[in-house]
């Protein structure tokens, strides 16, 4: 009897530990999750030293830190962001300047930085506890739910229109929301950055094949692209096996630019219906895309599981590869990528608008609705986003290391391009390709991904994750699109429902 009781007791504890989250302890043991303990030290100046601005920071190897800066006033701010180490130094300097400039108002500014992984968890905890920092991030995708749930306030009243008009047009639009539509109404955030997924080519492989470089002012058509890739797909060492390919593509991120450039949209205009089963541009573009692999112009599906496209690109095995703005620094580094390279546009399909399309991303600074000092918080946001010296530093004009492209348009086309051309900033010389995507022109256009507008991206997962079956020849494009649509629609319906439930 006692044994039986023990048994039931043990079963209960073991079972329930799953619910209490103990199942994930293995991850923690493995060192993935870092301690949740607060590493922030908030050290304020003591009595007589109050006039002096003091900075005290605790640096932790796990990427968490909090710096406290004090002024002479009584307004306190808590800034909570994620950043990489080298960015942090620059932004910390900006916050210091800000405290100096607003000395009489600022009591204390706590500048807390964490890693991207931990950021989301901590924010959920903050939201659940209703204890929000004054300044934090919002992505274009989250603006709607943050506003609907009353977490953030419009910045129009606090930041002057001139400041807002300095940044890329796109970033002026994507953080607007009028209660119904994103892209219209009040502005809720200023950009921390804007990035996009451009295309790159390995100049050395072009030279070796005796081919002309791609024209940055005229992206290839689908046909031209195949032609070039055929010439670049070769057996270099003559052992009978192909060891250099025209291109490598990662289905999750690198497929959509090919499709978008053929005018593909996965959802209808109000983002409620998946449109893939009877989508002619998609059929055409997906056939083109999967044929690249079927015809051997990319590594095979098996080869791709062994070594991903990114590694093959770094190793000089593929002539074309995707290049996010965040990849540029790595590709410019000779130790990482010992080849000459430059930017170009994604190939353009016959059924699109004749322009090369890609997706872009951004994250913005916003101000909490519970902030006691929204004015000061908004001023800080404006400083972080659009301070010219700050932007010179993060873009590399003054530091020689480009962490991101400038948010300020004039700075981008002016000083930044000059710095690229005269070699101060190591950057691909065809940077106009990226600016073209940002701004939109006769050749280029970029937009947020459709998954950015839906509550989550789950509806797109079945699509990209099964495309390898087409490449393998296990299913035709036509059959695939018929088969995947219901699953996508079900996930989209779920996302819409969650979106609608996102009100307090």
């Amino acid at each position, binding site marked *: 009897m006692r*044994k*039986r009781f*023990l*048994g*039931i007791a*043990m*079963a*209960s504890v*073991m*079972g*329930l*530990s*799953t*619910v*209490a*989250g103990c*199942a*994930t302890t*293995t*991850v923690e*043991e*493995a*060192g*993935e999750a870092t301690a949740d303990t607060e590493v922030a030290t908030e050290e304020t100046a003591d009595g007589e030293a109050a006039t002096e601005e003091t900075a005290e920071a605790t640096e932790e190897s796990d990427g968490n830190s909090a710096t406290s800066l004090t002024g002479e006033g009584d307004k306190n701010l808590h800034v909570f962001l994620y950043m990489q180490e080298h960015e942090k130094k620059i932004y910390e300097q900006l916050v210091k300047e800000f405290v100096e400039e607003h000395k009489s108002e600022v009591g204390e500014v706590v500048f807390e930085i964490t890693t991207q992984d931990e950021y*989301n968890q901590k924010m*959920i905890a903050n*939201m*659940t506890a209703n204890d929000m920092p004054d300044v934090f991030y919002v992505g274009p995708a*989250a603006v709607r*739910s*943050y506003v609907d*749930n009353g*977490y953030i306030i419009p910045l129009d009243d606090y930041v002057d229109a001139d400041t807002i008009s300095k940044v890329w047009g796109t970033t002026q639009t994507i953080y607007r929301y009028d209660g119904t539509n994103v892209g219209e109404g009040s502005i809720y955030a200023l950009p921390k950055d804007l990035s996009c997924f451009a295309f790159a080519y390995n100049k050395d492989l072009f030279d070796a094949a005796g081919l002309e470089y791609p024209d940055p002012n005229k992206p290839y058509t689908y046909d031209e692209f195949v032609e070039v890739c055929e010439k670049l797909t070769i057996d270099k060492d003559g052992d009978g096996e192909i060891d250099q390919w025209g291109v490598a593509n990662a289905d*999750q991120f690198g497929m959509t630019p090919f499709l978008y450039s053929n005018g593909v949209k996965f959802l209808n205009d109000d983002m409620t219906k998946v449109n893939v089963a009877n989508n002619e541009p998609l059929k055409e573009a997906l056939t083109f895309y999967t044929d690249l692999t079927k015809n051997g112009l990319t590594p095979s*599906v*098996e*080869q791709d*599981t*062994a*070594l991903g496209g990114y590694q093959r690109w770094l190793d000089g095995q593929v002539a074309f590869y995707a290049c996010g703005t965040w990849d540029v620094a790595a590709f410019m580094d000779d130790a990482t990528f010992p080849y000459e390279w430059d930017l170009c546009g994604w190939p353009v399909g016959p059924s699109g608008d004749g322009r090369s399309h890609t997706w872009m991303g951004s994250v913005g600074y916003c101000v909490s609705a519970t902030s006691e000092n929204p004015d000061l918080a908004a001023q800080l946001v404006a400083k972080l986003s659009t301070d010219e010296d700050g932007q010179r530093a993060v873009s590399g004009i003054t530091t020689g290391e480009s962490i991101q492209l400038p948010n300020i348009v004039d700075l981008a086309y002016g000083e930044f391009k000059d710095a690229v051309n005269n070699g101060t900033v190591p950057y691909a010389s065809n940077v106009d390709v990226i600016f073209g995507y940002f701004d939109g022109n006769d050749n280029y256009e970029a937009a947020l991904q459709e998954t950015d507008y839906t*509550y*989550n*991206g*789950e509806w797109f997962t079945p699509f990209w*994750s*099964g495309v*390898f*079956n087409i490449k393998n020849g296990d299913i035709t494009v036509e059959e695939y699109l018929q088969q995947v649509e219901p699953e996508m629609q079900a996930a989209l319906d*779920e*996302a819409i*429902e*969650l979106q609608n*439930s*996102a*009100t*307090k």
Partner: protein
Amino acid sequence: MASKKVKVRMSAMAKREERWAWLFIAAPFVGFMLFMAYPIVFALIASTSKWTGINSLWGNIVGLRNYAKILADAKFWKAMGTTIIYMIGIPIGMILGMLIAMGLNRKIPGRRVLTTMYYVPVVSSLVAVSILWAWVFNYDYGLLNGIYKAITGLHGPNWLGDETMVKVSMIIFMVWKGLGGTVILYLAGLQNIPRDYYEAAMIDGANGWQKFRNITLPLLSPVTFYVLITSLIGGFQVFVEVQVMTPSGGPNYSSATVVFYLFEKAFTNGQLGYGSAVAVILAIIIFIITAINFWGQDKWVKTID
């Protein structure tokens, strides 16, 4: 007439000691309430909501709808099927563990070194060894296919890229990772069996198999029981190796486990309420299986007394 209260008098010292006793009891109790009971209750409530982490939990209670959805979700059942298939590794690990323990129980030279070697994977970081094995299983550059090619001259299987092979790979990995722990437990169990049982059997003329069948196996049954229970529970909670070796859940979601599915739902897709419901279902399953095991143990688990 009011009844008189019977007062139990305590000395001052006893009182003081009692207060200390309460304090000692309070520490684990408060810990349990905060870190077990509260999250459990919270997860139970969250599992009946459309909580996303951003919206309000209480404003989005939907009753048992998450549960109904999960039970109708093909992806959940696929992940559950895979989780159960992975459990093929449990008997394999137990048999191998017992054999190795019996070998190590003999006075062979270097057995301490061997025991340590078998135990190293157990104490190694799961993430680190998962990354290592992802390379061992690599299609073009992996150790296994390298050996295969050297022997047969042919290209080996696509360990992590094929729907069936990825399951085989995961089972191999899990057996390798857990073997050391099983060996140590069986070794301890073997060393607890009194020598005279075997001597008595020898006098009765029992052969090696009979001694194993009638002495070793029954007297190891408590260890077997323990290993079985903990492996089954651990088996339902497999996550890290899947996440590391096949970050998107394998080709056509063929390597994803229930916890992987849960994680994806809750933390990638922001469906914390739904994820909580998956956790509750998993807890119920583990509870039932463990309870069945305990009820069934009288049939086969023997102790020395």
